[in-house]
């Protein structure tokens, strides 16, 4: 039972490419084996920055012979044709079988040695991988250039030439400490590369890193760098660096950002205590003292920059920064950030009033609106863009602003992505709404709406944020008033991913929007209610509605002339819709009256006045139902 090993040796693959390969290789290997007609026992995939390895254990020694029957010419065909057919299949004409008036070439076939099938297993592993980004080089196309290829069936090299590289039995180890060496078999692979100082299995590297971090102290990883780091090293070594405790005068998040954004260092902090003046990081080898010193130097440089910027910002003060916004342009021709800030004040005022949020919230939101963009001209944000919003809150606090104001400044960028954290305070929510709405409104008014996949100003994200906040807080926002008529529909479109995630269907959302409701909270409430109401009762309403719409045709709703109502069914229906149904249950309760009306009453009465009166009644029913939802959108 031979074992197959394939190692694709690469120049350093990005962490994301490693993860894509790790996800895709098992399926590619399974498919390739199946396609080649060989079954395997256990299969394994190992991924490290410079190698992708696939292992299939317990392959059959050969693929079983396959009997083939090929029909040839008619048995009475000229001799020449028959012998030609026989020759084509390597048979003597006498060996052709005769059946159904034709000759047949029958071959019991020969078994195929598994080594002959290996190239067909290896090729799709390389050609089938789909990376989010790939590059071309002289050898082909992959995430990064392929530089060596090990293909072994047990201890024999199977010759394959792919991506400009011929397979062999030699692998390359750790770039600086490993050199190169032979690979034995699939079973010995992990051990063989370990000899060359490579941990090829990601789980082992991760566990090694975690153990190293744990041993060094209570580490934190707020930026989620551990996964990435696992794929950046082949022989992880956790090292500890130190820095002067004086830098801890900086707000903690600034220190952590200096460590984690770009550098991928891990801060150290005991539960409930302040940051410690040290950091942990994962090296890929080197002399620990040299590597430590270099990384300390880099972090100190970043902390120096941060401290310099922070102190200078504090000296300037948030008020002075806010006063500089006039020189920073907003969207082309749409004035400066100062102009934008000027618009935010009235916007937050209107939102607070519409939602009766009270004077305190209104005051905090208004003050925060005036200050929220100031940190865009701060030194700290120009060093660390991630700190936008947070930096402003720190400087507002330093200037003695109320906590509610500081919180609103920090929160007004939220959510930073779909499903991201939303503002926690009312003032923050209102300011976040106003800021995003202003961007959307200005962009649309200048014809800068997103097209296709192009959304350079992040308008879809802004609109999605507006909707998410409105739903979260239950605020009424008057979309058309907030972002203009042109963008109001764009805003409501953002409801779709949120509601679909909850299980609401596209048709239910369309039906809810068809009611004419424009407030996101109302549209969402209607869509959710429709979803919860799915079933025979809802189908009944839908059918009744569709029937009314069809019969009413062009007829417009209007007052019904009671004196022209003759039949009981007609009078009952008129009475039933005098108060339009306010809920889906009420709508369902209307259905029997509608059905009885259509059963008992001839709408198209010969008398023109009676007919018009009846059509008006039907149109009234349709309109009353439609005010709840456009039931016609629901699938029938």
């Amino acid at each position, binding site marked *: 039972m031979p074992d197959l090993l394939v190692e694709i040796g690469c*120049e*350093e693959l*990005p*962490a*994301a490419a490693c993860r894509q390969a790790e996800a895709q290789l098992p399926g590619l290997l399974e498919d390739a084996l199946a396609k080649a007609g060989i079954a395997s026992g256990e299969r394994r995939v190992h991924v490290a920055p410079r190698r992708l390895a696939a292992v299939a254990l317990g392959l059959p020694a050969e693929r079983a012979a396959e009997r083939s029957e090929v029909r040839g010419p008619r048995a009475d065909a000229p001799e020449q044709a028959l012998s030609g057919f026989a020759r084509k299949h390597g048979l003597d004409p006498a060996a052709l079988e005769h059946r159904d008036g034709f000759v047949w070439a029958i071959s019991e076939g020969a078994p195929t040695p598994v080594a002959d099938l290996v190239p067909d297993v290896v090729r799709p592993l390389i050609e089938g991988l789909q990376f989010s*980004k790939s*590059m*071309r*080089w*002289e*050898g082909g196309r992959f995430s*990064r*250039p392929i*530089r060596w290829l090990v293909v072994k069936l047990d201890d024999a090299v199977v010759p394959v030439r792919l991506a400009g590289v011929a397979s062999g039995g030699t692998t390359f180890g750790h*770039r*600086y*400490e490993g050199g190169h060496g032979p690979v034995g078999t699939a079973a010995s692979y992990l051990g063989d590369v370990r000899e060359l100082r490579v941990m090829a299995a990601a789980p082992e590297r991760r566990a090694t890193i975690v153990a190293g971090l744990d041993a060094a102290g209570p580490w934190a990883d707020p930026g989620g760098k551990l996964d990435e780091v696992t794929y*950046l090293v082949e022989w992880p070594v956790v090292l500890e660096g130190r820095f002067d405790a004086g830098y801890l005068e900086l707000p903690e998040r600034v220190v952590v950002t200096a460590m984690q954004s770009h*550098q991928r260092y891990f801060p150290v902090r005991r539960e409930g205590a302040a940051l410690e003046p040290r950091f942990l*990081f994962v*090296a*890929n*080898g*080197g*002399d620990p003292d*040299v*590597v430590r*010193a*270099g*990384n300390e*130097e*880099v*972090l100190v*440089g970043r902390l*120096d*920059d941060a401290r310099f910027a922070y102190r200078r910002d504090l000296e300037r003060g948030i008020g002075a920064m806010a006063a500089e916004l006039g*020189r*920073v*342009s*907003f*969207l*082309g*021709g*749409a004035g400066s950030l100062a102009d934008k800030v000027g618009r935010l004040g009235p916007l937050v005022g209107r939102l607070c009033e519409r939602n009766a949020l009270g004077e305190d919230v209104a005051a905090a939101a208004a003050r925060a609106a005036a200050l929220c963009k100031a940190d865009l001209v701060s030194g700290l944000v120009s060093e660390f863009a991630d700190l936008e919003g947070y930096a402003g809150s720190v400087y507002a606090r330093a200037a003695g602003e109320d906590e509610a104001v500081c919180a609103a400044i920090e929160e007004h960028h939220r959510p930073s992505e779909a499903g991201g954290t939303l503002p926690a305070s009312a003032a923050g929510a209102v300011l976040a709404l106003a800021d995003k709405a202003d961007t959307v409104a200005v962009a649309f008014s*200048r014809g*800068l709406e997103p097209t296709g996949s192009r959304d*350079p*100003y992040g308008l879809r994200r802004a609109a999605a944020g507006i909707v998410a906040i409105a739903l979260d807080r239950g605020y009424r926002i008057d979309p058309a008033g907030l972002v203009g008529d042109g963008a109001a529909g764009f805003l409501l479109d953002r409801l779709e991913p949120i509601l679909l995630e909850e299980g609401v269907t596209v048709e239910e959302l369309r039906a809810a929007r068809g009611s004419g409701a424009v407030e996101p909270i109302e549209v969402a409430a209607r869509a959710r209610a429709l979803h919860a109401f799915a079933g025979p009762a809802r189908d009944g309403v839908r059918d009744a509605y569709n029937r009314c719409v069809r019969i009413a045709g062009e007829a417009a709703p209007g007052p019904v002339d009671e004196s022209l109502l003759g039949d009981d069914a007609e009078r009952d229906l008129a009475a039933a819709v005098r108060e339009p149904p306010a809920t889906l249950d009420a709508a369902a309760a209307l259905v029997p009256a509608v059905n009885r009306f259509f059963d008992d009453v001839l709408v198209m009465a010969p008398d023109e006045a009676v007919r018009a009166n009846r059509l008006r009644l039907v149109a009234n029913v349709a309109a009353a139902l439609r005010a709840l939802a456009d039931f016609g959108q629901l699938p029938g």
Partner: protein
Amino acid sequence: MAHTFQGMLAALQEYWEAQGCTIMQPYHTEVGAGTSNPATFLRVLGSRSWRTGYVEPSIRPDDGRYGENPFRFQQFYQYQVILKPAPADIQDLYLASLQAIGIDVPRHDVRFVEDNWENPSLGASGLGWEVWMDGMEITQFTYFQQAGGFDLDPISVELAYGTERLGMYLQGVRRAHDMQWSQDVRWSDVLLQNERQMSAYNYELADVEVYARHFDDFEAEARRCIDAGLPLPAYDCVLKCSHSFNLLDARRAVAVTDRADYILRMRRLAQAVARAYLEVEEPEILA
């Protein structure tokens, strides 16, 4: 003495010369990076092999800090290498170049960290890495995929060394200012006044209207050159547009939307220049 700044540059020069590079001199027009030098941007187009190395003073008005920041300047020196086609052992060649300037590579943690490079105003992009040494970025290492909107074939590799950082490291100084340029002269003796004055000019004095006009004028001039079948002077005009744009940007005179428009105008020019260049050099490629 290899550990002066000039000694290090000479060592790089010597190393890449030995690899068959034509050693060029800096270009005469402001460029934001060695990539914009025609010895890179134009020579990576087409099929002909090309190896070059040169020091490029890279002018980025918006990076100026009046000489107050230890390693951020409006003018810095890149050492630029182009190998076309990229050889299969290029990573080893690169690491040996570090060794050649006095870095004992195995004692360090030298890492190739993903970096996808793009220069939208040149219609150029590539994939590769930032090379990190002990957490410090020292080189950009890029396999060019596109230039002037053309898919490249063969693929060139570009190495752009950050020479100030490497020099500071080799000399064990924390500020570029303290780096020995030669035995007797420090970086600050040579360039500090330049940083101060150019920062003041770039941020405070540069006339926004003049540079906006320059942009328009050189754009028109580039078009005339292209129409006349003269891609080289046309490209110089593109570089002048690019520098004008960078100054406008430093003066905060470019709104977000205008930025996209300026970049688009530059990219169209760069694409037209690339096409005109191929028409002169290798018309069969366009056929």
